[in-house]
């Protein structure tokens, strides 16, 4: 009697395969094997994403709202952007012309104080009305 083709023994999967089907159904074997590999890769990817998310949460950057008085045309807002872009640690600047609110995002580990914000706004030719921190960075959490 001719011996059926026997795939290599790849652990448990082969045992299941062996129990459910006689030797020789290689197509089904490789299908199940591919499914197993995909499942493993999915688990690894999930773990990686989770890790990134946790790390991201730990790297939250300080964000400040700077209320600027006197901003009333698009051309003038660029002065505010230019001056804040020269402040050490500033990573992102978003001006809202209608409200006069400028959102300043700092790099991790950097902070912006009210005095610096006032000096920067005044150097651009405008007036600081108010200043508040709307998101704290990891270095601030220990101070809470």
């Amino acid at each position: 009697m001719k011996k059926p083709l026997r795939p290599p023994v790849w652990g448990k999967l082969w045992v299941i395969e062996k129990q459910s089907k006689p030797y020789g159904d290689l197509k089904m074997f490789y299908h199940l094997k591919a499914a197993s590999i995909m499942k493993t890769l999915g688990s690894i990817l999930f773990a990686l994403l989770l890790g990134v998310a946790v790390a991201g949460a730990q790297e939250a950057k300080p964000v400040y709202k700077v209320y600027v008085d006197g901003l009333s045309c698009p051309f003038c807002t660029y002065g505010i952007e230019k001056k804040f872009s020269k402040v050490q640690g500033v990573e992102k600047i978003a001006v809202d012309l209608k409200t006069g609110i400028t959102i300043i995002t700092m790099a991790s580990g950097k902070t912006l104080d009210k005095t610096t914000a006032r000096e920067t706004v005044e150097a651009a030719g405008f007036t600081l009305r108010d200043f508040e921190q709307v998101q704290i960075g990891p270095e601030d959490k220990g101070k809470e």
Partner: protein
Amino acid sequence: MLLQIIDLGKRIIWTIGLSAAFFLFVGIGAAWSAPITFNTALPVAEEEFIFREQFIFDQSGDDPSGADRDREVFAAVSVLGYGVTSDLAVFGVLPYVDKSLDITSMGTRNTRDASGLGDMTLFGRYTIFKDNVPGRTFRIAPFAGVKLPTGEDDKTDGLGRLPASVQAGSGSTDPFGGLVATYQTLNFEIDTQASYKVNTGANNFEFGDVARFDASLQYRLWPRSFESGVPGFLYGVFEGNLIHQNKNQSNGINDPNSGGTTLFLVPGLQYVTKRWIAEGGVQVPVVQNLNGTSLEKDYVVRFGFRFNF
């Protein structure tokens, strides 16, 4: 027609080249954000620069003297502004001019022309009052400066020395000063300016002093409303220039056919973004109360741009 187009092309190339050269020479520049025909009190940020380039075509041709004079002036004016502090800004202005005068004399039609760099102007502006509230600002700023005799003022042609009004430069050092006020909201802006320029003499000739009062309204046409961010604004512009010039003096004697008062109205458009402004307008003389046979203005076209560095 083809020659005119080629000539215009040459002028534009010269203008761009000279503007670039001026920009590189000075290193940086200045510009404002409001009226098309005069200054504003809006700030130039500390240690920052603004550049403005304006192209001007000035046509005068209604000649009551019978000499059928027709004068055209093309100018490309480069302005560089620098914020020494947020209140003190200094400006340098350098024009490139191309002037021509057609005149009929003893039955012969002659063209007299000159071109080249004109007189440089340097001035400073200091904000003495500002009131900033959310979405609005009101500012008052005096300014003072001097026009320097950097342009050629002794060009001659086959008919002799060109008249002073055709020379690229005046040859004189002329101080000036004034006051500008600006009220700006998110919807509109109003600027007013009063100024006086003392023209001194050169080559036994002295232009009359110039006093002027200017006003400008810019009204946001588009977008009609906006929610967030910094959108570009399209302004409709309407300005007025009331300009009085005293009589010129030649060898110490007043020229009765010079000086007078002109009122221009200036409709225009201006598109303003964070980094640049494009603008254009036409100065239309609605009142010209000129002395003697002074040459009347037909119109002045102005267009250009400003750029935030």
